[in-house]
């Protein structure tokens, strides 16, 4: 087959069986590419199971720095007989299927529009290793070695990585290197190397980092000053707490006493987890929990309490595919409404929508400031794609000159100096935010009773209708104030004024950016764009929609939840908001967005209103 040489621009996918240790080998490969200065975005596609089922690892390699999923795969390393057939069929025309030729391929699976590269990995492992576990493990490392040869990468980079990873375990390094070299040699001897797809050194990653969003959230909580964390395990949020505890062990052990400057409580369930967070926050600590959809549902009653009694609380909600238990190891952006309006009655909650590990870090730290400033729950809405995959990101930043915004808290001194009656729910400053006191502050002033029932400005229980209304309207004033504090949207304008815009949020960012790039280059369609970062929406969000005839809203859910939220908040004519929805549980692709928008624009015959129904 005649082919052009493709350098640093393709997608490779590894098909493995979970629990066989393939993850670390695959990661070794992608990190090696990254270290050659070539941008990558790896995606784990794993089952909700511990051992024995198919699992995939898809790596997009793109020297132009497009990091969303593109769609389509050129090269598959097929190590799993269970999924072999569909893996072979997934390879794009002109691509390669690399397999373990110890057992011959079933001829019925052959395709003539792709190339098959067989390497007798298992056979080799049998001759090299005694124990079966080793055979299994090193088979993975071996195909990585083979890839190096096929893509024309030198093994030096790998060696360096291994040395860093296993600093004080030289024996592990050598054994891995052996396997790498064995694979490299086999490929060189038995295949024509290099193949049409190549990886060459570049300088295109700058000072970027490769990090899982959950890891960044955990670190953000440490920097944000969280001291109490209560949680209940659930995929895909568990690693947020793993990361928090890892960094706490590193940064939060008191040097003298050896005691912990933090507390992590594994709660009995999510109701207890959020209850502990609320109790700790009420008592003056910065506290948070992390969960996913089912946990969010269980926290509903407590969210209403925190909203109405005005208690800070931070939740990292790492979204997965719902409804119900849904697809626990697939991604989605489908808790947008459930988070924004959590709990019965008239409630609304501050939400943040990070798109990158850097934003995971920054927003998580910021969440504590917002929660204390507004004395209300703050929900950081990440998702499985961002949280559990290595994402390339700008380096994390921290300004040492800034200091925590603890919000309106009355100290003993302030109380001492006060000659008027303290009112927990008095709107002294007209911004809807009252002053709170912490238990134990003052022997005779500032004590009040916190409750989920209605109360007057002095926190005294009341069933008086006017008092109730005043309080509910103050909460709306507070909400308006929050509008100015939350992160502003990221708006990108095309040179020439443009009447159509695209709105995205969270993990739809990278794919949307790429789609816009190609809409411009390939179809001559250039559009403004806005990345929404927070709820309540700031004035700029309003302006952006106001200024465009109509806007596309890109989301990863079925029911266009962000679109509903935008309409509810700003009373825009829904005709002007056109949905682009991708919700099969895999991260949204640039191709999908591009095609949806292109088709729409090129044949908008019927009115957007009617057509938006289909979206």
């Amino acid at each position, binding site marked *: 087959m005649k082919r052009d040489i493709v350098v640093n621009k393709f997608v490779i996918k590894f098909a493995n069986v979970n629990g066989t240790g393939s993850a670390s080998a695959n990661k070794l490969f992608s990190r090696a590419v990254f270290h050659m200065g070539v941008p990558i975005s790896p995606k784990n596609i794993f089952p909700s199971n511990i051992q024995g089922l198919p699992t995939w690892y898809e790596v997009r390699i793109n020297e132009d720095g497009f990091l969303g999923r593109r769609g389509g795969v050129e090269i598959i390393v097929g190590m799993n007989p269970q999924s072999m057939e569909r893996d072979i069929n997934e390879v794009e025309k002109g691509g390669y299927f690399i397999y373990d030729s110890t057992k011959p391929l079933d001829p019925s699976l052959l395709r003539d529009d792709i190339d098959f590269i067989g390497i007798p990995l298992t056979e080799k492992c049998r001759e090299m290793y005694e124990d079966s576990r080793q055979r299994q493990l090193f088979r993975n490392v071996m195909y990585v070695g083979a890839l190096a040869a096929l893509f024309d990468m030198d093994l030096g980079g790998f060696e360096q990585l291994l040395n860093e990873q296993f600093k004080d375990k030289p024996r592990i390094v050598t054994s891995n290197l052996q396997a790498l070299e064995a694979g490299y040699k086999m490929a060189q001897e038995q295949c024509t190397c290099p193949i049409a797809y190549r990886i060459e050194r570049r300088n295109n990653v700058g000072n970027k980092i490769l990090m899982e969003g959950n890891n960044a959230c955990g670190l953000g909580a440490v*920097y944000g000053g969280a001291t109490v964390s209560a949680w209940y395990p659930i995929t895909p949020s568990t690693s947020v707490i793993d990361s928090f505890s890892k960094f706490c062990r590193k940064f939060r052990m008191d040097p003298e006493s050896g005691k912990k400057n933090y507390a992590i409580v594994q709660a009995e369930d999510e109701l207890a987890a959020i209850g502990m967070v609320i109790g700790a926050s009420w008592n003056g600590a910065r*506290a948070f929990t992390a969960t996913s959809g089912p946990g969010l549902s269980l926290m509903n009653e407590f969210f209403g309490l925190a909203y109405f009694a005005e208690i800070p609380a931070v939740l990292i909600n790492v979204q997965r595919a719902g409804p119900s238990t849904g697809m626990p190891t697939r991604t989605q952006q489908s808790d947008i409404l459930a988070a924004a309006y959590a709990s019965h009655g008239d409630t609304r909650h501050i939400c943040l929508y990070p798109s990158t590990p850097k934003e995971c870090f920054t927003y998580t730290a910021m969440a504590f400031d917002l929660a204390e400033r507004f004395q209300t729950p703050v929900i950081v809405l990440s998702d499985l794609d961002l949280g559990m995959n290595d994402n390339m990101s700008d380096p994390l930043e921290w300004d040492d000159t800034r200091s925590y915004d603890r919000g309106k808290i009355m100290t003993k001194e302030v109380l001492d100096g006060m000659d008027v009656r303290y009112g927990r729910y008095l709107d002294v400053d007209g911004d809807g935010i009252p002053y709170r006191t912490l238990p134990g502050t003052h022997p005779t002033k500032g004590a009040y009773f916190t409750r989920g029932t209605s109360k007057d400005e002095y926190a005294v229980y009341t069933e008086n209708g006017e008092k109730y209304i005043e309080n509910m309207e103050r909460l709306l004033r507070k909400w308006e104030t929050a509008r100015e504090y939350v992160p502003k949207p990221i708006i990108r304008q095309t040179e020439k004024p443009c009447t159509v815009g695209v709105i995205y949020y969270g993990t739809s960012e990278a794919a949307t950016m790429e789609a816009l790039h190609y809409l411009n280059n390939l179809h001559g369609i250039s559009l403004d764009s806005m990345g929404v970062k927070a709820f309540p929406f700031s004035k700029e969000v309003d302006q952006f929609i106001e200024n465009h005839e109509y806007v596309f809203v890109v989301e990863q859910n079925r029911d266009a939840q962000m679109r509903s939220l935008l309409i509810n908040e700003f009373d825009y004519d829904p005709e002007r908001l056109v949905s682009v929805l991708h919700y099969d549980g895999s991260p949204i692709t640039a191709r999908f967005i591009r095609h949806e928008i292109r088709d729409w624009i090129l044949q908008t015959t019927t009115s957007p209103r009617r057509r938006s129904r289909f979206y």
Partner: protein
Amino acid sequence: MSYNIPTFRHPNLPKNDIGYTSKDYEGAVSTLCAGCGHDSISAAIREACFEMSIPPHRVAKLSGIGCSSKTPTYFLGQSHGFNSVHGRMPSVATGANMANRDLIYIGVSGDGDTASIGMGQFVHAVRRNVNMVYICENNGVYGLTKGQDSATTDIGSKSKKGEPNALEPIDLCAIALQLGATFVANSFSGDKQQLVPIIEAAIAHRGFAFINVISPCVTFNNASGSTKAYDYMREHMASTNTVDYVPPATEITASFEEGTDERVTMHDGSVITLHKLDSRHDIHSRRSALTLMQDYKAEGKVVTGILFFDKNSKEIHETMNTSSVPLKDLSEKELCPGSAALEKINQSLH
């Protein structure tokens, strides 16, 4: 930390060691039914805190939802209080305790709030040995929702509704003991002499101190057929011991009889004198406590008093080895690693 004495004074009222009068321990006027057992418990809490010379603002009062859970409004008006949601007080109290280990935590709940909707959280608060007093004001009925049987209603017991209860009751003391609770007592709202010192001992205890107080609901469960009625309790209550509490560094005047009496020094230096009324029972043996309860139950009696406590109790902060400075008081400097450390992390991820 020094406390300046409240400004308003009642010269003619007796003062405690820190100069507070009983008035300083009062709360809002109760809105419960006249004669409700819960009000007596509030009074007992006030008295205990006064006698122990606890500055009210060093106490945090927490509760769930119910008539019982309303009571924190009726004592210690200078303390912060938190009337949370139904059955979830244990988690809120646990979180509060995590944030500030220096306050005294008094949790008030009801039998519905604890044994039904709150069962799971109760079990786990016990298991964690959270340093708090947990009082279940047990009237064997849902008072605030007007008289449904609760999970602690005895088989055959009749509330105002008149239908005998059919299901096994949950014995909260027995469950707490089984779960490894480090302080377990049973009492009766009608017996202040017994209740006050028990509350004092519970406050002095380091760890989760559970007090189940039978507290009759005069409106819905005080009929003749009820085993949680005043009359029934007066007839069937049997105390295994009475307790004397003596604050730290105070001369002990309480009488002491070799053999039947026992003196225990709590970790805060206060001393408890137990007058044993039942020689069979060893208050430091979980097993003996369970047996004792089974025996009395078999005799159709309700055993009261301190049933068990563990002198070597390790509360949750000790187990977790958390900072002795309350976590809420740690400064930004202590908490935030700063930009230099972050730079290193960036390096490692590049």
